């Protein structure tokens, strides 16, 4: 019961703020709603027993990425509203329609396509550690070491790329 209340509340906040993010005119307000949205998603992760991901969500998303967005919005202090011009060939209604179609499809898959999974594999029990953070760390540094290194490489490349793009003269 408590779970259900928590889930529905969080879900309502997540979706509500998500709608505000894409519907608000003012970019800065939109970013604020995005932060709130991420915080509620983090709360959802806590509900799911994934504290580590929740904290990373707040640390990286809310504390890092979105600050970057805010920074960019403040740097591009726009003289005119960003969305006054509209491409005459733009099909906004088509966009809504397509999105609606995808939603129906996804909902259908989620509702009827979901099969109760087989009982948990033996993998977790093989882990010598307990606790969410330890288990995630264990997986990251054993089975997923190569993807982990690739991700770090990706971040490095992105960092260099961002510097090259944003810096005026190198």
């Amino acid at each position, binding site marked *: 019961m408590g779970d259900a209340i928590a889930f529905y509340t969080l879900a309502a906040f997540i979706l509500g703020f998500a709608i505000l*993010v*894409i519907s608000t005119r003012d970019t800065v307000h939109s970013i604020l709603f995005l932060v709130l949205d991420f915080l509620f*998603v983090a709360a959802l992760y806590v509900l799911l027993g994934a504290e*580590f991901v929740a904290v990373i969500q707040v640390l990286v*998303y809310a504390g890092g990425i979105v600050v970057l967005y805010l920074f960019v919005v403040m740097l591009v202090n726009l003289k005119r509203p960003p969305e006054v011009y509209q491409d005459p060939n733009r099909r906004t209604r088509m966009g*809504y329609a397509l999105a609606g179609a995808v939603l129906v499809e996804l909902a259908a898959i989620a509702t009827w396509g979901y099969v109760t999974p087989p009982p948990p594999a033996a993998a977790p029990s093989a882990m010598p550690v307990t606790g969410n953070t330890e288990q995630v760390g264990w997986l990251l540094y054993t089975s997923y070491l190569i993807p982990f290194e690739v991700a770090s490489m990706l971040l490095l490349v992105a960092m260099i*790329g961002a510097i090259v793009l944003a810096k005026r003269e190198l």
Partner: protein
Amino acid sequence: MITPTHYMLLSAALFIIGVVGVLVRRNIIIIFMSIELILNAVNINLVALSNQLQNQVGQVFAIFVIAVAAAEAAVGLGIILAFYRNKETVNIDEMNLMRW
């Protein structure tokens, strides 16, 4: 009782909100933020299933997704800044040239 289906539906709804943002808005910064929403929708799915399966692999992938999102934001915002410097706009409908 909250089943993974509930989480999947939530995730699908969030995903669609993101898709609508990408398709409908013209401010490229908002479009980027919609992409972040989509990535979050995926993460909710991953974490929910990880919880259901009692297997932390889903959370590991969620962390990878966050890392990729960080990379995407850094490069994407770099592009926005570089573009803004040249064209003084963040409206994607005005971004209709391949080069200048």
